[in-house]
C-alpha cells in the first residue's frame, strides 16, 4: 500500500493538468501519462520519472488541450461584481460601528504607509535623471588598519581614479572630484560666499546636468576654470551681464567662468553651487609641494565612471582588486579595498562615511519601513479579527448564495471585494491624514528636510490605489476563505454549531500580538525619551546657560570681539576652536617622558576668558594669561585623566611638567576637573585646552540680560553692520546640545507617534470585540441577571477574558523591549539612563487603563440593560 502511494505521479503536476485540460480530453490524457509514468518507473528512478511526468504535463499544454475559459463566465462575473459591490455597501451601512472602526483603523495605519511609499519612491527616484544612469558607478573604499574592523567610505584616492582612467578598459567616461572648493567670490566690489566641488573634465560625460551656456567638453580642462549654476550666477552677477568668460576672484585667485549649468535637481545626490576644474586643485597642490597622489589620501576625493555598454560591474571590480593589491603592498599596516556602487543605490544603499552630499542610508529606511509595516499589520489584524467575529451573521447569506449556485471562488471574491471597498474608503481618509502628517515628518530633523520633499506626483496615486487594494486583499483573504468553507446544508440547518467558533483562539492570538506590538512601541518611546532627557540634564562639568556661540566665518577674532564689547548685555566674551560636548572632536598626538608611549589628546583651542566663563573647575595651577592671541604656543591645561594616564602625579605635582603634543613641548600650567567634552554616551579620555591663536573659529558670548531675544537682535544687527557678506550664524549652547542629541528626540517622536497609532488601532479593535461579545451574549447576561447575578460579577465575567489577553501581552512585551534596548540599542553607550520600572510599566498601565475603559464601558452597558427588554421576545 505504502509503495503504491509513493509511486504516484506528482500531485501538483496532476492538479495543474486538471486545471488547464479540457474535461473531455482529460481522462484519457491523464491515463496515457500514468501509463508512461509506470513504464518510466521500470527503467528510471522515481525522481526522474516524476520529472518526466512534469515535463509531459507541461508539453501537453497545447491550444487544443486547454480548456476554454468561457466568456459567458466572465459576463456572469461582471454582473456578480455589481452585486458584490452592492452587498458590500449594504453590509457596511448596516454595521455602522464596525465599518467605522475598520475604516478608521485602516486609515490610521495606511496614512503612515502612504508616507512610507512617498518616501520610498522619492528616494528611489534619486539620480535617475542621468542618461544611462544604470551604467554610472562610483568607487567606494573599504579602509582597514591592522586588525581593526573595516570602515566604509564613499570617497577614494586620486591615484585610484587616475589608474582607473589609464589602465581599465570598458569605461566610456570617468570623473575625479574633490569636495571643499569654496571661499568668497569677488566680482568688482561684490562679495558672495561660494561653495562647490572640484571636478575633472569627464564630469559632463558621466553626469547629465543640463548645460545652459558654454561647452561641457572643455569647460573643466584648464586650471582656474569655473562652472556656475544658473542660481549662483544670478547671485554673483547683475542682471543683464553675461556671466560666460567673466573673471571671478575666489580666495584671491582669478577664475574664468567657462560654463553655466542648471542648478542640480532636487533628486540628485550630488548638489553643488559651482564646479572648479580639478586641474586647479592639482596645480595648487603642486605649488605647495604636496603629494596628492597618496594611496591613503582617500578622505576628500570621489571617482565616478560610466561603463561602456556590455561591460559588467564584475569586470571592473576585478581590475580594481588588482590595483588595490598592487598599492596595498607598499603598506604593511593599512589595507584599502576598492569597490563599485551604482549611482542609483547611493541614496538607498549602505551607510558610508564621507558622503559627498546628505544621504538617507538604507538602514534607516529599512527600520522605518519595518515599523510602518507593524502598524499596518496591526490595522489589518483588526479587520480580520472583526470580520471573523461578525462572520456568524453572514453565514446565512453565504449559505443562500451557495444553494443558488455560487462556487467557492465566487464567495471568496465577494468577501475580498468587500474588504477592498473598505480599504479604498480608508485610503481617502488616509490621504488626508497623510497630508496632515507630512509637514511634521519633514520637520523632524534637518537632514530629512534637506533630502526629501515628499511631493505627491500623479504616478503616486496609482501606487496608493494599488496599495489599498493589496491591503484589502490581504486583510480580507482570511475571513473570505473561512466563510467560503461553510457548507450550505450545515448553515441552513443552524449556524450555531458551525466551526466558526473554533477560531476564537486565533482571534485571541491576534489581539495579543496587537497589544504586544503597541506595548513594545510605547516602552521604546519612553526609554528613548528618558535617554534624551538624561543626556540633556547630564552635568557636563561646566555651565552652558546663556552662552551664545557665533561662527567667525573667516573674520578676525579680535575685530569681532571689539564690536561685541560695545554691547552692554554681553557680560563676558571668549573665543574657541569649536563647541564641546556636541559631537565633533579635534585630536592630536601626545607623549610624556617615554617617547614610545603615545596617545591621542582631544583638545580645544581657547583664550584666557574661556575657562572662567564656562565655569570649568581648576584643580591646580592657573588659567592662561590673557595675552594677545598672536603668541606662539607653549602652555597647556589638561584634565585629570591625562595626568593619570601618564602617572604624572597629583594635580599639584604635575604643574610645570612638559607634554609633547604634535612634537611641540607644552608646559602644564593647570589641571581641570574631568568633564564631558564628547557626547555623554562616550567615555572620558585625555583632554586638554590649548592656547592656539590661529585655530579659533567661534566666538562665545555670555549674555547677562533677561531679554535674550532682544539682545540676540542687537548682536545680529551688530554682525550685519560689521560683515554684510556672511550670514549671521549663532546658536545658544543649550540649543546646540539639544541638536546633538536629536537622534534620540527623532527616535522618540517617531516611535512615540507610531506607538500612539498602534495603540489607537488596537484599542479600536478591542472596542469592536467588546461590543460584539456584549451583543452576542446579551441574552445570557439577562438570564444571569434574572437569576440574581450582580452587575459587578457580570462585568468581571465579561471583562476577565480580555484582561487576561492584556496581561499576556504585557508579559511578552516588557521583557522583549527591555532585552532589545539593553542589548541592542544602548549597548556601548557609557553614560546611559537606567531602564526603570516607570518606563517599563508606565506603558503597561496606560494600555491597561485604556483596555479597561473600552471593555468596561461596553460590559457595563450590557450589565445595566433591563433583562425584561432583552428577554421579552423569547
Amino acid at each position, binding site marked *: 500500500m505504502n509503495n503504491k502511494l509513493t509511486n504516484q505521479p506528482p500531485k501538483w503536476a496532476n492538479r495543474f493538468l486538471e486545471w488547464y485540460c479540457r474535461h473531455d480530453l482529460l*481522462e*484519457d490524457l*491523464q*491515463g*496515457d501519462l*500514468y501509463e508512461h509514468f*509506470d513504464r518510466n518507473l521500470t527503467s528510471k528512478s522515481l525522481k526522474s520519472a516524476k520529472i518526466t511526468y512534469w515535463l*509531459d504535463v507541461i508539453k501537453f499544454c*497545447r491550444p487544443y*488541450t486547454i480548456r476554454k475559459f468561457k466568456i459567458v463566465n466572465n459576463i456572469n462575473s461582471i454582473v456578480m461584481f455589481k452585486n458584490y459591490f452592492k452587498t458590500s455597501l449594504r453590509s457596511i451601512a448596516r454595521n455602522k460601528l464596525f465599518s467605522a472602526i475598520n475604516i478608521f483603523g485602516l486609515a490610521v495605519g495606511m496614512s503612515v504607509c502612504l508616507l512610507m511609499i512617498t518616501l520610498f519612491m522619492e528616494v528611489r527616484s534619486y539620480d535617475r535623471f542621468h542618461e544611462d544612469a544604470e551604467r554610472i558607478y562610483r568607487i567606494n573604499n573599504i579602509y582597514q588598519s591592522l586588525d581593526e574592523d573595516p570602515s566604509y567610505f564613499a570617497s577614494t584616492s586620486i591615484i585610484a581614479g587616475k589608474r582607473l582612467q589609464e589602465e581599465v578598459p570598458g569605461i566610456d567616461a570617468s570623473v575625479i572630484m574633490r569636495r571643499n572648493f569654496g571661499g568668497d567670490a569677488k566680482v568688482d566690489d561684490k562679495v558672495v560666499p561660494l561653495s562647490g566641488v572640484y571636478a575633472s573634465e569627464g564630469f559632463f560625460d558621466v553626469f547629465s546636468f543640463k548645460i545652459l551656456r558654454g561647452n561641457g567638453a572643455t569647460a573643466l580642462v584648464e586650471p582656474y576654470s569655473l562652472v556656475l549654476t544658473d542660481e549662483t550666477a544670478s547671485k554673483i552677477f547683475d542682471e543683464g551681464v553675461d556671466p560666460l568668460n567673466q573673471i571671478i576672484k575666489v580666495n584671491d585667485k582669478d577664475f574664468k567662468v567657462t560654463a553655466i549649468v542648471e542648478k542640480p535637481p532636487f533628486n540628485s545626490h550630488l548638489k553643488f553651487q559651482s564646479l572648479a576644474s580639478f586641474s586647479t586643485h592639482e596645480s595648487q597642490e603642486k605649488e605647495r609641494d604636496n603629494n596628492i597622489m597618496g594611496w591613503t589620501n582617500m578622505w576628500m576625493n570621489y571617482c565616478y565612471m560610466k561603463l561602456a555598454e556590455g561591460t559588467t560591474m564584475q569586470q571592473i571590480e576585478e581590475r580594481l582588486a588588482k590595483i588595490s593589491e598592487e598599492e596595498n603592498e607598499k603598506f604593511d599596516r593599512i589595507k584599502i579595498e576598492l569597490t563599485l556602487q551604482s549611482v542609483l543605490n547611493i541614496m538607498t544603499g549602505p551607510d558610508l562615511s564621507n558622503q559627498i552630499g546628505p544621504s538617507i542610508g538604507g538602514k534607516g529606511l529599512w527600520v522605518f519601513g519595518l515599523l510602518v509595516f507593524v502598524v499596518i499589520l496591526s490595522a489589518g489584524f483588526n479587520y480580520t479579527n472583526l470580520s471573523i467575529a461578525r462572520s456568524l451573521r453572514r453565514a446565512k447569506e453565504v449559505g443562500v448564495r451557495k444553494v443558488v449556485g455560487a462556487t467557492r471562488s465566487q464567495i471568496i471574491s465577494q468577501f475580498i471585494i468587500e474588504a477592498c471597498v473598505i480599504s479604498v474608503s480608508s485610503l481617502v481618509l488616509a490621504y488626508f491624514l497623510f497630508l496632515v502628517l507630512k509637514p511634521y515628518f519633514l520637520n523632524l530633523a534637518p537632514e530629512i528636510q534637506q533630502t526629501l520633499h515628499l511631493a505627491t506626483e500623479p504616478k503616486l496615486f496609482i501606487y496608493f490605489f494599488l496599495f489599498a487594494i493589496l491591503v484589502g486583499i490581504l486583510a480580507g483573504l482570511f475571513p473570505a476563505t473561512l466563510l467560503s468553507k461553510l457548507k450550505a446544508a450545515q448553515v441552513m440547518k443552524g449556524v450555531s454549531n458551525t466551526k466558526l467558533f473554533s477560531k476564537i483562539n486565533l482571534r485571541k492570538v491576534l489581539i495579543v500580538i496587537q497589544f504586544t506590538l503597541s506595548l513594545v512601541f510605547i516602552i521604546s518611546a519612553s526609554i528613548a525619551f528618558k535617554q534624551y532627557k538624561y543626556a540633556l540634564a547630564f552635568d557636563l562639568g561646566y555651565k552652558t546657560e546663556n552662552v551664545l556661540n557665533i561662527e567667525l566665518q573667516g573674520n578676525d577674532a579680535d575685530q569681532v570681539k571689539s564690536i561685541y564689547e560695545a554691547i552692554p548685555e554681553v557680560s563676558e566674551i571668549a573665543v574657541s576652536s569649536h563647541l564641546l560636548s556636541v559631537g565633533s572632536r579635534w585630536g592630536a598626538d601626545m607623549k610624556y617622558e617615554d617617547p614610545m608611549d603615545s596617545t591621542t589628546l582631544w583638545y580645544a583651542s581657547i583664550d584666557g576668558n574661556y575657562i572662567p566663563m564656562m565655569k570649568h573647575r581648576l584643580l591646580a595651577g592657573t588659567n592662561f594669561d590673557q595675552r594677545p592671541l598672536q603668541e606662539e604656543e607653549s602652555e597647556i591645561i589638561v584634565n585629570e585623566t591625562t595626568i593619570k594616564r601618564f602617572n604624572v602625579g597629583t594635580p599639584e605635582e604635575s604643574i610645570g611638567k612638559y607634554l609633547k603634543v604634535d612634537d611641540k613641548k607644552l608646559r602644564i600650567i593647570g589641571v581641570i576637573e574631568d568633564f564631558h567634552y564628547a557626547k555623554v554616551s562616550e567615555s572620558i579620555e585625555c583632554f586638554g585646552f590649548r592656547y592656539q591663536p590661529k585655530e579659533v573659529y567661534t566666538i562665545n558670548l555670555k549674555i547677562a540680560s533677561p531679554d535674550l531675544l532682544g539682545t540676540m537682535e542687537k548682536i545680529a544687527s551688530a554682525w550685519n553692520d560689521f560683515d554684510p557678506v556672511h550670514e549671521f550664524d549663532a546658536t545658544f549652547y543649550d540649543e546646540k546640545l539639544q541638536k546633538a542629541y536629536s537622534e534620540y528626540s527623532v527616535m522618540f517622536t517617531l516611535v512615540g507617534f507610531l506607538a500612539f497609532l498602534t495603540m489607537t488601532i488596537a484599542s479600536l479593535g478591542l472596542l469592536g470585540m467588546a461590543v460584539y461579545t456584549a451583543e452576542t451574549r446579551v441574552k445570557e447576561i439577562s438570564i444571569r441577571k434574572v437569576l440574581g447575578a450582580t452587575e459587578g460579577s457580570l462585568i468581571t465575567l465579561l471583562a476577565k477574558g480580555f484582561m487576561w489577553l492584556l496581561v499576556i501581552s504585557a508579559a511578552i512585551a516588557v521583557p522583549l523591549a527591555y532585552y532589545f534596548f539593553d542589548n541592542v540599542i544602548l549597548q556601548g553607550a557609557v553614560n546611559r539612563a537606567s531602564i526603570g520600572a516607570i518606563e517599563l510599566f508606565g506603558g503597561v498601565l496606560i494600555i491597561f487603563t485604556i483596555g479597561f475603559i473600552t471593555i468596561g464601558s461596553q460590559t457595563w452597558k450590557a450589565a445595566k440593560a433591563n433583562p425584561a427588554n432583552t428577554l421579552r421576545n423569547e
Partner: protein
Amino acid sequence: MKGTNLGEFEEVVLLTIASLMSDAYSVAICDEIERITERSVKLGVVHAVLNRLEEKGYVLSQLGEATKVRGGRRKRYFEVTDAGKATLTKVKEQRDELWRLIPEFNLKMI
C-alpha cells in the same frame, strides 16, 4: 478546402489505427508506429494528430471500460470512419497511379 488533405504522419497514424483494429488507443498507436517506422514518436505529437483527425472526421473515438491500470483512467479507443477509409483508399490510389507512371528502369538501383 483546409483539412481534407492528409499529412504524412496523419496517414501513418490513420493506417496504424486501422491495423490495430479494436485495440487502437493512444499509447498502443504510439508503440506500433515506433515499432514499424523505427523512429521515436512523442506521445504528445500522436495525441495532437489524433485530435486533428477526429476534427477532420476521419476517426471516431469512444471511452473504454475502466481498469485498474492507468490510475483507473479509461482508455480512448479510436476507429477509422468511412470518410477516413475513403481518404485512405484515395491516397493509396493516387500513389499507385504515380507508381504506375514511373518507368521501371528509373527506380532500379545502380
